[in-house]
């Protein structure tokens, strides 16, 4: 069971875990990425996540297939949220179920790292001083 979805609703870790659970899998590994209240010393009021949705889902689906081949994953889910998020909100949830603990955690890291590197998703950070900036885009401040 593999699923990669862009969502506009809160990501619920319990639902993700329940989705991959099975009595044949001894290990479940979960990663949650959360909006932080500060970034590089600036106070963050919120982040607007946007994505090329169709491609992000396709790319994350490929990443899950790769993890399945490399690590023998039994089941895995990625949910990435888009829209306006505030500090404490979960922006990404990844869960992996595997017979064994080491490959479960290997696969979790692979999926999280590859999603961050390859999925066409962007964030516009809103700072307490009212300015906004595209994260990772170098000199592309929009205010």
């Amino acid at each position, binding site marked *: 069971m593999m699923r990669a979805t862009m969502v506009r609703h809160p990501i619920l870790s319990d639902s993700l875990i329940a989705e991959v659970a099975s009595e044949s899998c001894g290990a479940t590994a979960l990663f949650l990425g959360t909006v932080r209240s500060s970034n590089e010393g600036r106070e963050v009021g919120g982040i607007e996540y*946007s994505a090329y949705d169709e491609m992000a889902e*396709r790319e994350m689906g490929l990443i899950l297939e790769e993890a399945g081949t490399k690590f023998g994953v039994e089941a895995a889910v990625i949910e990435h949220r888009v829209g306006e998020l505030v500090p404490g909100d979960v922006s*990404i949830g990844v869960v992996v179920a595997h017979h064994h603990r080491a490959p479960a955690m290997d696969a979790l890291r692979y999926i999280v790292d590859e999603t961050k590197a390859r*999925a*066409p998703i962007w964030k516009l950070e809103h700072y307490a001083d009212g300015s906004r900036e*595209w*994260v990772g*885009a170098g000199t*592309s401040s929009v205010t």
Partner: protein
Amino acid sequence: MNVTVRLFASYADKLGRSRLELEMPDSATVADVTRSISSLPGAATLPPSPLVAVNCSYADARTSLSDGDEVAFIPPVAGG
């Protein structure tokens, strides 16, 4: 032939739009579309070889295009 160009995030901000249709010669490649986009107002600060996807797959500058293809310019990604 016609291709659809999609722009996202900081690129969409720079060019003031997120989607346009281009008519290209039949032998056009990704590099040709990049040249067309680079001549638009606001495109001066785009990188010279931006990351591109064709029909939702990463592609390189030499990729040749077909009628109806969707060519997306992908700013530095920052998901997670």
